[in-house]
């Protein structure tokens, strides 16, 4: 039991179905969704305020409500909870290690990609959570545009990744090389256990002092962090690896998870008569999605995936995190100050499928769309391997 929970990575299908159900439940309890990049934008604003920049006049910050601090916002605790949950599982499984990329160029690629991904995500009003994994189940049409756009951006990202000057030369040597000497003294699980206890105590404190929304954010954030780390849930790889090497596991698991989440969210919305969260669908969604898709492949990770990789000790994701916050903050500045809103967003509209197609139409069209995505995924995987075998046969 201990072995299979802490030593192995969990099945991504199971993990994403559970994450989908939890995010539907979180919505039912709080009327907000599992999201991270909105909080990254606010973090950027807070940092600017520390340096004396007054951002209260920026329209974007009025829209995403920059009040209090990251410690007094449920969205903030979703983010920190995810970091803690991921770190806890990394330590409990004794898998923390400082991992420095051999290729120095990765730092630059990560930083630049992070900026592009952060900018794109906020332009589209959500990353692969609010405009994808938790956006589709809210029946917000902007997430449909975002999925297509991310696919396009990722396609070009994958092309870039294969270029010689981008990927660099691997360290391939003749003969048998020596692996590292594994440490026999294992202390990480104890540290992980201690962090888990302290954090759970803190969650209990939040609830017992009546800070229910913060407590829920902290608790669900923790659960999401545990899930994405143990399942190695990488949204970046979903499209990218399909284009690169015909790998479909993560794509299929994400589609199945979104299907489960859509059905449950639909029930929650109908039974409790809730209003789904709808974002503007506009040209900005398309442009933002393409930039996001390109940026996450350049950076080797999206805003969600970078969180658990950073906790595993992958140093590459420090510049990616910084880039994400910078990119999101630049977008927040440019929203009104550089006229981004007027050019790309103004012509758009909040389109919710439940409102436009009716409840039955909304869930049916969503299921059909997910079915088509699944079919395309299988088709791409098959055609990649058919071509690969042909090529191999000729060679």
């Amino acid at each position: 039991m201990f072995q299979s929970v802490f030593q192995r990575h969990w099945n991504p299908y199971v993990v994403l179905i559970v994450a989908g159900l939890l995010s539907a439940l979180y919505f039912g309890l709080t009327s907000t969704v599992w999201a991270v990049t909105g909080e990254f934008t606010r973090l950027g604003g807070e940092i600017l305020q520390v340096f004396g920049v007054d951002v209260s006049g920026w329209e974007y910050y009025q829209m995403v409500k920059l009040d209090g601090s990251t410690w007094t916002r449920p969205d903030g605790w979703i983010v920190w909870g995810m970091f803690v949950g991921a770190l806890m599982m990394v330590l409990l499984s004794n898998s923390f290690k400082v991992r420095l990329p051999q290729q120095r160029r990765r730092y630059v690629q990560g930083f630049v990609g992070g900026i592009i991904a952060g900018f794109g995500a906020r332009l589209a009003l959500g990353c692969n959570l609010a405009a994808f994994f938790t956006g589709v189940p809210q029946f917000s049409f902007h997430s449909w545009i975002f999925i297509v756009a991310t696919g396009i951006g990722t396609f070009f990202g994958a092309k870039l990744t294969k270029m010689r000057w981008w990927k660099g030369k691997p360290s391939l040597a003749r003969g048998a090389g020596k692996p590292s000497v594994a440490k026999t003294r294992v202390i990480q699980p104890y540290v992980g256990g201690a962090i888990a206890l302290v954090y759970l105590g803190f969650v209990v404190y939040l609830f017992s002092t009546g800070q229910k929304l913060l407590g829920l954010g902290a608790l669900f954030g923790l659960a999401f962090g545990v899930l994405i780390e143990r399942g190695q849930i990488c949204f970046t790889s979903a499209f990218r690896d399909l284009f690169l090497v015909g790998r479909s596991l993560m794509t299929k698991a994400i589609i199945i998870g979104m299907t489960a989440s859509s059905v449950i969210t639909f029930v929650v919305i109908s039974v409790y008569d809730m209003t789904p969260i709808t974002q503007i669908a506009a040209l900005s969604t398309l442009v933002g999605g393409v930039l996001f898709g390109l940026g996450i492949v350049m950076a080797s990770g999206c805003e969600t995936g970078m969180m658990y990789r950073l906790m595993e000790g992958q140093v590459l994701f420090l510049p990616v995190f910084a880039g994400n916050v910078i990119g999101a903050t630049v977008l927040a500045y440019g929203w009104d100050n550089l006229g981004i809103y007027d050019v790309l967003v103004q012509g758009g509209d909040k389109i919710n499928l439940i409102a436009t197609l009716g409840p039955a139409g909304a869930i049916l069209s969503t299921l059909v769309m997910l079915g088509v995505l699944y079919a395309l995924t299988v088709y791409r995987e098959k055609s990649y391997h058919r071509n690969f075998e042909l090529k191999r046969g000729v060679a």
Partner: protein
Amino acid sequence: MEAMKEADFTLDLRGESCPYPVIYTLEALEGMNKGELLQVITDCPGSFRNVPEEAIAHGYTFAQDPVKNGQEYLFYIYA
């Protein structure tokens, strides 16, 4: 272990993040002669799963089961 022949090439992927472990591994195998043995040393947790799965999906075979060595994994794959 004793019966296995010495690796002909070693691909040291320590520190590299996805997708580079998969790309490098497949390219290394492609460039080798059939029957030669590649040793892969990797420490990116994502690669513990996608490298062996993709090597097999691309028609390569494993000389032995993956070896967990602390925070890294060792793979032995025939080109």
